[in-house]
C-alpha cells in the first residue's frame, strides 16, 4: 500500500496539474460547457449522474475482459503456431497484417449479418484489435532467443517442445508482456467501439447518446471512465508482469544500484 503511494504520487501530481491547468484555461477563456467542460463540471456530472452510467460500466468491463481474454489467447496461439510451423508463417503472416486493415465500419454489417446483434460480433471486434500486437511482439520475442542457450538445448537433445517451453517461451516473456500491455491498452477502447455495433448497454452507448444530445459533460464522464478502466487494466497487467518476471527485477537491482 505504502509503495503504491510512493510510486504513484508522481503520475498523480502530473495528472492533477493537467486537470488544474485545464480548469483554469476553461475558466479564463470562458469556454462553453458544450464545447469543452472543465474538470469540475465533469466531476459534478460524474457524481450526480451515477445512476445514469453505473449500469453501463459493468457491461463494458465484462465485454472488455471477455474480448481481451479471447484476443490474447488467439494472439498467443497464432504466434506459437506461426513460430513452430515456419511454412505457415510465411503463408499467413501477410494475412495478419491484412486483418488489421479491415475497417470496422465495413466489417460491422457482415458481422451483424452473420452473428446478429448479440455479444459475439462485439467480442470479435475486440479480438481483432487485441490479438495483433500480441502476435507480432510474441513472434519477435521467440525469434530473439539467446543462441548459446538454444545451442545447449539442442546439444542435450531437447525436443522441439522442450526447447519451446523451457527456453523460447520464458525467453520471450518480456516481449510477450510488451504485447499484452499494448493489447490491454487497446482493449477498453475496442470494447467501446464495438458497442457502436449495436448494443443496449455499455459506456460506448452512454457516450453516443450523450454526444447526440450535446451533453458534452457526460461525454467527458464517459471518457474518464474509459481512461480509468484502461489504467486499472494496464496496471494489473504490469503487476502480473512484475511478478512473473521477478528474476529480471532482481537482476536489475544489483546493477542499477
Amino acid at each position, binding site marked *: 500500500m505504502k509503495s503504491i503511494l510512493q510510486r504513484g504520487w508522481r503520475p498523480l501530481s502530473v495528472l492533477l496539474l493537467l486537470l488544474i491547468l485545464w480548469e483554469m484555461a476553461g475558466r479564463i477563456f470562458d469556454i462553453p460547457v458544450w464545447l469543452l467542460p472543465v474538470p469540475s463540471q465533469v466531476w459534478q456530472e460524474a457524481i450526480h449522474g451515477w445512476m445514469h452510467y453505473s449500469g453501463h460500466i459493468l457491461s463494458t468491463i465484462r465485454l472488455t475482459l471477455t474480448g481481451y481474454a479471447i484476443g490474447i489467447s488467439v494472439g498467443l496461439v497464432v504466434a506459437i503456431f506461426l513460430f513452430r510451423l515456419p511454412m505457415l508463417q510465411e503463408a499467413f503472416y501477410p494475412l495478419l497484417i491484412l486483418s488489421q486493415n479491415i475497417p470496422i465500419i465495413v466489417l460491422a454489417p457482415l458481422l451483424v449479418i452473420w452473428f446478429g*446483434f448479440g455479444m459475439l460480433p462485439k467480442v470479435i471486434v475486440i479480438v481483432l484489435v487485441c490479438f495483433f500486437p500480441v502476435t507480432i511482439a510474441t513472434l519477435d520475442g521467440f525469434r530473439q532467443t539467446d543462441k548459446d542457450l538454444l545451442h545447449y538445448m539442442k546439444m542435450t537433445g531437447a525436443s522441439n517442445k522442450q526447447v519451446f517451453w523451457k527456453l523460447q517461451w520464458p525467453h520471450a516473456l518480456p516481449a510477450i508482456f510488451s504485447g499484452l500491455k499494448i493489447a490491454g491498452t487497446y482493449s477498453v477502447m475496442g470494447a467501446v467501439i464495438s458497442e457502436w455495433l449495436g448494443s443496449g448497454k455499455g459506456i460506448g452507448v452512454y457516450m453516443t447518446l450523450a454526444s447526440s444530445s450535446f451533453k458534452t459533460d457526460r461525454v467527458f464522464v464517459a471518457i474518464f471512465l474509459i481512461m480509468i478502466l484502461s489504467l486499472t487494466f494496464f496496471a494489473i497487467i504490469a503487476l502480473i508482469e512484475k511478478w512473473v518476471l521477478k528474476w529480471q527485477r532482481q537482476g536489475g537491482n544489483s546493477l542499477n544500484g
Partner: protein
Amino acid sequence: TTEKSKETEQDGKLEKVQFVLDWTPNTNHTGLYIAKEQGFFEEEGLDVDIMLPGEAGADQLVAAGKAQFGISAQESITEARVQDIPIVSISTILQHNTSGFASLKKDGIESPKDYEGKTYGGWGAPVEEAIISSLMEPENADVKKVEFINMGNSDFFTALERDIDFAWIYYAWTGVEAELRGIDLNMQYLNDYTKKLDYYTPVFITNEKMISENPETVRAFVKAISRGYEFAIDKPDEAAAIFSKAVPDLDEELVKASQQWISPKYKEDADQWGEQKLEVWKDYADWMNENSLLEGEFIPEDAFTNEFLPK
C-alpha cells in the same frame, strides 16, 4: 463561365466560407452543390468550401465558428439550444418530414399498431421510443410490446436481413435505393400520424455570432442556396447531373432517382423555398416536453429565422 472568372479576377477577393454537411453528400444537399457549381456563390462574393463532418457532426463546428454554415435538423437544434449551443436555423431544405418507419412489404406492417410484437432497430435514444409510442397510442397499441434493438452503425438493409423488422429511414435516399433494388417497402411517415412530428429536417444553420456580426454574408449565402434549390426544383434531371458530377463517388442512378423523388418536396406548399413556421418549432418542442425529453427551456422564436430568405 469565362465571364464569371473574369469578374472574379477583377474584384479580386471572394469571402472564404466554410460549410459542413450533416453527413455524406446526398440529394438533400443538391441546391448547395448547384449554388457552388453554377457559380451562384461566386456571384454573391462567396467562396464556399464544403466539408464532410466525419465523426464530428456539424452543430458544434458551426457553433464554435470553425465553419460558418452547416446542415442540421430541427431535433438537433432543439436539443442543442437547450444546452446553450448558439446555432440558428436559417432555412429549411424540405417543408415536411420525409422520414418514417420502413419495413419489408412481406412483413405486413401496414400501420403503427402492427409494430406490436415486432423488433425495431434504432440507436437507443429515448426519443425513438417516445415517437413510436406517439404513433401507436392513437391506435390503442402498446409500445411495450415492441422490442427495441440497438443496431448501432449498421445500415438499414443489413439490419433488415437480420433480427430487425422495421427501422427509421429517410425515404428520399434509403427508400429510393430500395426501389432501385426492387425491394418493396411499407412506410409509415411520421407526419401522416401526428402533426407535431412534422418537423424540419434537414435545415441550414449558422451561429448567432454570424447573424449579429455578418448578416450580409448570411444573406448572401441564403440567397445563393435559394437559387440553387429553385434550380433543383425546376430542373431535377439537370440538377441531378450537376450534383453527380460534383460528387462523382456517389451512385449516379441513385442520385437521379432520389432527385426526382425529392425535387417536388423542397418547396411543396410553402410560399417560398426555405420558409419556416413558428408553430412547427413550437409543436415539436411541446411534444418533447410532453414526453419529458427536454431538460431546459426552449425558446422557439430564437431557434430559427426567415429574415435572410430573399424577399
